[in-house]
């Protein structure tokens, strides 16, 4: 290290920053995983409620209704939870008219619903209880009990976009199930316990534009040090040093980069404003809730990392990828470095940024944009300084071999950021998604390897074009990530498999209940194949139901003595192991390790007799 890196205070600082940056994901904040609950959504997910002030005196309620779910028009009620605030009559659009044999004519809503309620009175915020009820209209056809949610909509400050704060998501259970709804609303209030603590973020939101701008600026500045952004900037800075151009050229480069950053932040700000006016609740990082975005970002970071490691040298031929543009000499290259910096900065939140963004998300339209621009200015500042104060550039160390070392070193924070995104994806869409994105990365690496190998002089251009094949193949796993269900969303709506338990098995056998035992593990490919082809199908569930067979599943992903003992009993060296216990109490029968639907059908039918 000493022989390559010159010893100077600058380098000590750089090393501190680098280490801090790479440790950030470890010490930083974990992302909450989206969790599902079986095939059916919880009522508050199926009917996602948000509220904001449409104009002074008019509250707008918005429901995002999941596909195949609907809300009843005459089951929607709104009540003020504050004696100082009065609500007018709820105005609802016409719904789809349907005839119900008991209730008569009813109206229902699909997709989304906007309702308006006039209000009057003076308070810092409007606290309301909203009750609604709806159903799932495809199999299993079910209805949810009436749900009451208490919302707090701040009125102070801006009159247009207000923050949404369901401060209690309650009353789904307990006394609120039936009618009258007044009763429901009351009990929800009493059960919403620590309301004040939850409501506090509303009041901590800044009402002060200048302060928000300062915080945004500082946040943007710190963003430079985030593990994902730092490497890109370092490379660009090195490039700047290497070229050793005239100060006028350096200034143009810095300005082009700043333009790229500001343009990206402006686009981001406009998108957020647009979505917000459409009634969506958004936050910084909302884009990371989209598994597809996460997967693509992980791949981008991986490619940038490979580039830094020197495994590939992009930017010498292809003009279509972002990193190629980044490496391109000239102003376009600088502009796209700015864009790339914002793109890969998006998973990160720097300190102080949160407060500034919270302001931007509630500020009336125009005031939000300066906040985004300030963030951009903060991010671009180091470059502007280097460009415009030549003395600063003179403080920077001289170009030399150490730059190659630094570049390769900076690849590692990139890989770590990619790892973090894969982990986020695994939380969102389960381990399958993580596997798919890793496959995509391998394919991309293969494409880059071939591209690099067949550089002119080593092969023909046509051969080089073959690199497109693995690249296209890499699209397939990424596309299938989009189709994966949310993590935890099991494929069945009813209790089918029960966990393996020797005592329960003995009990069931004593009662002459046929039992089908499946011992499997996540890492067992045959098990997964059987599950995919036979066991996770509706036909198999139907077969279980018809033969009244209890389905017991043991998970040997981790060591489990009870399962190991069971495997030993059946002379099975490992999983999968399928054993069928007939209803006549005769000993369990070991089934082959590869199952077919027809074979199971015959075996289970025979065992149930």
């Amino acid at each position, binding site marked *: 290290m000493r022989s390559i890196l010159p010893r100077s205070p600058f380098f*000590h600082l750089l*090393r*501190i*920053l680098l*280490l*801090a*940056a790479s*440790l950030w994901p470890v*010490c*930083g*904040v974990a992302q*909450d995983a989206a969790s599902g*609950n*079986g095939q*059916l959504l*919880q*009522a508050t997910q199926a009917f996602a409620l948000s509220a904001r002030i449409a104009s002074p005196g008019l509250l707008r309620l918005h429901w995002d209704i999941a596909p195949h779910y609907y809300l009843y028009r005459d089951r929607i009620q709104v009540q003020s939870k504050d004696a100082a605030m009065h609500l007018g009559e709820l105005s609802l659009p016409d719904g789809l008219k349907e005839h119900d*044999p*008991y209730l008569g004519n009813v109206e229902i809503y699909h997709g989304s619903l906007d309702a308006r309620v006039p209000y009057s009175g003076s308070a810092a915020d409007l606290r309301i209880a909203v009750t609604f009820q709806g*159903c*799932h209209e495809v*199999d*299993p*056809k*079910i*209805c*949810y*009990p*009436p749900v009451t949610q208490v919302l707090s909509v701040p009125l102070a400050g801006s009159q247009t976009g207000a923050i949404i704060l*369901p401060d*209690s*998501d309650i009353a789904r*259970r*307990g006394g609120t*199930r*039936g*009618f*009258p709804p007044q009763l429901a609303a009351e009990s929800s209030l009493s059960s919403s316990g620590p309301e004040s603590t*939850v409501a506090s973020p509303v009041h901590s*939101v800044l009402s002060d534009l200048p302060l928000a701008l300062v915080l945004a600026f500082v946040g943007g500045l710190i963003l430079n040090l985030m593990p994902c952004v730092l490497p890109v900037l370092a490379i660009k800075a090195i490039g700047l040093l290497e070229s050793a151009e005239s100060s006028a050229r350096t200034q143009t480069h810095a300005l082009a980069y700043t333009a790229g950053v500001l343009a990206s932040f402006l686009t981001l700000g406009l998108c957020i404003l647009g979505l917000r006016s459409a009634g969506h609740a*958004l936050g*910084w*990082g909302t884009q990371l809730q989209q598994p597809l975005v996460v997967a693509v970002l992980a791949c981008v970071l991986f490619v940038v990392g490979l580039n830094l490691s020197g495994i590939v040298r992009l930017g010498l031929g292809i003009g279509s990828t972002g990193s190629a543009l980044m490496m391109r000499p000239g102003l376009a290259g600088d502009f796209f470095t700015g864009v790339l910096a914002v793109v890969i900065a998006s998973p990160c*939140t*720097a*300190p102080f*940024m*949160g407060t500034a*963004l*919270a302001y931007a998300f509630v500020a009336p339209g125009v005031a939000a944009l300066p906040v985004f621009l300030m963030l951009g200015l903060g991010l671009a500042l180091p470059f502007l300084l280097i460009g415009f104060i030549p003395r600063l550039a003179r403080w920077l160390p001289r170009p030399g071999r150490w730059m190659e070392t630094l570049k390769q070193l900076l690849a590692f924070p990139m890989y770590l950021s990619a790892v973090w995104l894969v982990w986020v994806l695994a939380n969102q869409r389960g381990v399958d998604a993580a596997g798919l994105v890793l496959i995509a990365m391998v394919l991309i690496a293969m494409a880059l390897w071939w591209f690099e190998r067949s550089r002119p002089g080593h092969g023909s251009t046509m051969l080089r074009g073959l690199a497109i094949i693995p690249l296209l193949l890499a699209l397939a796993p990424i596309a299938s990530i989009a189709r994966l269900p949310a993590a935890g969303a099991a494929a069945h709506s*009813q*209790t089918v498999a*029960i966990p393996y338990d020797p005592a329960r098995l003995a*009990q*069931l056998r004593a*009662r002459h209940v046929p039992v089908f035992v499946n011992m499997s593990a996540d890492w067992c490919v045959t098990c997964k194949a059987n599950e995919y082809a036979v066991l996770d199908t509706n036909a198999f569930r139907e077969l279980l*139901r*018809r033969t*009244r067979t*209890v389905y017991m599943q043991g998970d040997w992903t981790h060591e489990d003595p009870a399962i190991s003992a069971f495997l030993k009993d059946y002379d099975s060296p490992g999983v999968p192991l399928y054993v069928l216990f007939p209803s006549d109490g005769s000993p369990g029968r070991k089934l082959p390790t590869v199952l077919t639907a027809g074979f199971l059908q015959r075996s289970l039918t025979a065992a149930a007799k």
Partner: protein
Amino acid sequence: MIDRRATLAILILATAAACGGGWLQRRMQTPSSPPVAASTPAQSSLQIGDPADDLVLPDLQGTPQRLSQWRGRPVLLNFWATWCAPCRKEMPALSTAQSEHPNVRIIGVALDQPQTVRDFLKHTPVDYPILIGIDADPEPTLRFGDTVGALPFSVLIGPNGRIERTQLGPLNANELGTWLQGSK
């Protein structure tokens, strides 16, 4: 030597900076999404093969009825409510099933106010007893594994008082036949 000490100092400083940054980030970050409320109370659900709780629920006259009084024959608990269209649609099939399988006891548990239920039954009578489950605590549907709290929800309890099957969503005539066939 000096270099080594410097490296150690750098490492400590960097770790402190990263943790400080992480802490600051967490502190300063206003929740961008509303806090997710605890989904379901951490109450254990029963599983297939478990003995069912001995519920005591009032009937339409307010008289408490104990579930174990039907021990010895299969009991089909059907949780429903008047606001639930698929539940109401399922009820005639349950009435038919009750007359076809007199050995089985079908019980409708209404998660609704007693007066609403009485009004409904005047309009649509059924051939099996109805109990009121709205005030039961812990909630019987949750105990039997209906974690989303939706209706209709059916539970088949064997003659020995153990849970044999559960289903969220209506049972059609075929399914009812299969459910009740074996419960002799």
